[in-house]
């Protein structure tokens, strides 16, 4: 990584906190609402994809809770984790609402998540675990976008993808890794 692009961790986190978009706001901008839902060509298929995304968001919320309560995160990383968890809650709330708008039943969070907590013994472990989930989320949304019959849903999913990618980059930065290692995500 070129030296000129290296940002001190504390100032990087402060900047990230100010510039990270509200997922709810971008989804509203995407026009993801009841009127569009009624226009969907195959609402059952779209509900299926939405529920897959909702399940992953619910798990991410639980994972950040584990991280926040681990006692391993120091400031400003802890605040950032709580902020990212808040984004996932916004994603989940809107996905659940959209499933209902499409006449579907939103999936419920699992009663228990089997996280590898025995492997989380340091702040870096927690960050690496979260980064892996965020990277997976980017790929999951990338794999969901082409499946939506309703184009506004694809647009909304792409906006969530962008948010997850920002999370992934910030977590990599916190780990001292190149925050944007590739030109394309997959």
């Amino acid at each position, binding site marked *: 990584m070129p030296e000129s692009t290296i940002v001190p961790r504390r100032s990087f986190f402060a900047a990230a906190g100010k510039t990270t978009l509200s997922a709810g706001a971008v989804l509203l901008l995407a026009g993801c609402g009841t009127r569009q839902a009624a226009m969907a060509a195959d609402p059952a*298929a779209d509900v*299926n*994809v*939405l*529920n*897959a*995304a909702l*399940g*992953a968001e*619910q*798990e991410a919320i639980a994972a950040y809770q584990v991280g926040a309560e681990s006692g391993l995160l120091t400031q400003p990383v802890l605040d950032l984790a709580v902020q990212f968890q808040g984004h996932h809650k916004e994603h989940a709330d809107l996905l659940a609402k959209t499933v209902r708008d499409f006449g579907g039943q939103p999936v419920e969070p*699992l009663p228990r*998540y*089997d*996280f*590898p907590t025995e492997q989380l013994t340091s702040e870096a472990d927690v960050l690496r675990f979260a980064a*892996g*989930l965020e*990277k*997976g*989320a980017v*790929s*999951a949304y990338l*794999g*969901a*976008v*082409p*499946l939506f019959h309703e184009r506004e849903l694809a647009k909304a999913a792409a906006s969530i993808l962008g948010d997850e990618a920002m999370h992934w980059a910030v977590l990599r930065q916190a780990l001292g890794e190149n925050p944007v290692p590739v030109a394309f995500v*997959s």
Partner: protein
Amino acid sequence: MILLLSASLAAAAQPAAAPGGDAVRGAAIYERCQACHSLERNRTGPKHCGLIGRRAGGVAGFSYSPALEHSGIVWSTESLDRFLTAPLAAVPGTRMGYAGVKDPQERADLIAFLAAAGPCDN
């Protein structure tokens, strides 16, 4: 002529034959799956240890879609290649809302990684 055309169309509908896979490259491809899956643990998707030779829908205690549970699929290199190409086309109604891994080499690498993972510890 019509028979030849039909045969060509049928062949086009099948996934391309996967070349030999590389499990090391497959480990990097598998990172895409980790929003929902892991090798050792059931998450929003089922665990992948012991996948080869297992009946689809066969992880005890995991709640599958009826479509996958009744698909009759047994996971092999060939069935995984078909499923991973386009999961919703291979098993309509599966809850795996993912477009698929379109590159034959990437699928082969991913399958090699899954095969190398071996059986589950528990």
